[in-house]
């Protein structure tokens, strides 16, 4: 595989391009100003280049989100950086009760172009309050879209798509992706790579056409790297051909455009890092059962982390979080059925 820029750099470049292109875009967050440039260095250079529109805030997630809402209400577009996704829960009232509801509760559609960026996920030993995958807590809120960074989608296009929705969008960013390089080529020695449907949809990676694949794996952007690792193992050791689908938008989930692929294969496993219970995967599975029950050859497999806080010590954390082995085991089970 020839790989492109680091994902954090691609995101940083996307933010720069967006603020340069559109004078009405604001960027707010804690410790985002230079020379620090955000806890994960994603906002580097923005405060120096776009003075007055890039604001370092006090530690006030509730009010940061509120200020974003007030700017949006007055006609601006806003990107908020929440330092750790765990803290998005502090902004939940403004996000759920104001941003999302304002889109429709005043009787006519009201544009609320706000993107809330949330670094999430474990694997870095940050412990229980800095490692969660909180995506699932925001799934199913009317007029609130949930996105996740992937190793495949270009960040500027992603940011533009979110703003064009004119409704609040959460962008979850798995911290493990920041340092990784983005895929932007046709594939590698095992898998071809592309985007489903016209334009900018779900990314897919596969070694065989849908009807010759043994299993379709739908994965969040954050777990895509470990699913790819699992797919290699499954192919090389078990001769199992998987087809990976990675949506940038988790909710509302676009099932329609991938239905033919799922129907042709008949076996589906959904992978995410969130802990068990009320998961995104369960929501996706419910929709798949509803639409594709007669085509399925096995139960939709749900792969996620254990129902547990995320421990700080690496060996304990590893035991809780979803791993490539977990994916391999669940796919083998699905294929056996």
């Amino acid at each position: 595989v020839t790989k492109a820029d680091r994902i954090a750099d691609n995101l940083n470049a996307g933010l720069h391009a967006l603020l340069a292109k559109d004078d009405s875009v604001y960027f707010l967050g804690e410790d985002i100003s230079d020379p620090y440039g955000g806890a994960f260095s994603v906002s580097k250079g923005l405060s120096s280049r776009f003075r007055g529109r890039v604001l370092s805030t006090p530690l006030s997630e509730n009010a940061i989100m509120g200020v974003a809402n007030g700017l949006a209400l007055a006609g601006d577009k806003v990107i908020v950086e929440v330092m750790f996704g765990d803290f998005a829960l502090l902004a939940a009232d403004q996000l759920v009760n104001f941003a999302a509801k304002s889109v429709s509760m005043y009787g006519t559609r009201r544009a609320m172009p706000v993107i809330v960026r949330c670094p999430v996920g474990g694997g870095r030993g940050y412990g229980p309050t800095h490692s969660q995958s909180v995506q699932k807590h925001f799934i199913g809120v009317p007029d609130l879209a949930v996105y996740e960074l992937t190793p495949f989608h270009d960040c500027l296009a992603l940011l533009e798509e979110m703003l064009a929705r004119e409704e609040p969008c959460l962008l979850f960013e798995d911290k493990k992706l920041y340092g990784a390089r983005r895929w932007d080529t046709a594939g590698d020695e095992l898998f071809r790579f592309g985007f489903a449907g016209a334009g900018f949809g779900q990314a897919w990676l596969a070694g065989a056409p849908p009807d010759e694949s043994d299993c379709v794996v739908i994965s969040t952007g954050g777990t895509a790297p470990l699913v790819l690792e699992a797919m290699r193992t499954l192919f090389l050791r078990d001769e199992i051909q998987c087809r990976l689908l990675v949506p940038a938008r988790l909710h509302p989930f676009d099932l329609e455009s991938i239905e033919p692929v799922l129907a042709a294969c008949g076996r589906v496993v959904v992978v995410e890092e969130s802990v068990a219970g009320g998961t995104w995967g369960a929501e996706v599975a419910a929709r798949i059962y509803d639409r594709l029950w007669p085509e399925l050859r096995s139960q939709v497999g749900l792969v996620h982390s254990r129902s547990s806080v995320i421990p700080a010590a690496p060996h304990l954390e590893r035991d809780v979080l979803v791993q490539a082995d977990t994916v391999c085991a669940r796919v083998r089970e699905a294929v056996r059925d």
Partner: protein
Amino acid sequence: VTSVLGRRAGVAPTRLADEDLDRLLLIRRFEEQLLELFAAGQVSGTTHTCLGQEYVPVALEALLDPNDYVFSNHRGHGHYLARFRDVNGLLAEILGREGAVCNGVGGSQHVLRGRFVSTGVQGESLPVAVGTALHLKRHDPAAIAVAYVGDGTWGEGGVYEALNMAKLWSVPLVVVVENNGIAQSTPTRLHMAGSVAGRTAAFGIDHLLVSSTDVNLVRRQADAPVRKVRQGAGPLVVEFETVRLGPHSKGDDTRDRDEVHSLQQHDWCGAYEKAFPEQFASAAAGQTAVLAAAVADVLARPPSSWRHL
């Protein structure tokens, strides 16, 4: 609050312009009419009336420009009517009838029209108002954002996050505190340590205490401080010592009769009627007729329709 109200009792009201008195009585009659409609089973859900507090938005609206944003709260009918006089649109919103300001989706507590926004969660509007004020500072420097909150709102953490940012960024924001001495059923002394003034001072924000219920005097007192905000001096908190004569929502007043009776001694309305009986009688008859016509009109309308896009 009682002592201040006590000091104020007995001060004779000054004569109001007919237009102001009409506006005050329009709001008074609207709220009374609404409670009657509730009692008659014509209104669903809940509502919060501002009986006793009508003079606050009527006094302030004259200091505002149409380009100013107004953020209202759960007790917002007076704020809306002081700005728009649109009795039929608001009544239709509350009754879910055709012609409702927000197609009946928002109801009593969630109204958006032009630069007027209300929402029903305590403490939620202040951070939003800071954001809008930030926008105004850059694009519309002559305009300000005004946010109405109650004394109970000061229990919410978002208030302090917002005050902090408002002062740090010196945004054109006027926070209007309608301190009516009670948050739903909890007296201020049981929910607030310290005071609004003390909390405001902690942020280095100017605080103006308004004890008068006289629209003319309130305007005279608030005019210069509000103008200062408009000129870029940064945020201001205006605290009104006021009274809530009615229940929190409907039929949920736990205060005893004596207490409510003593609050009525501080109602602007009775004092004004005594001081200017003829002007009052004429205005009251006029606004009673306006409301009667509005109720008849709105009740005859079909239900509102809404297509969620």
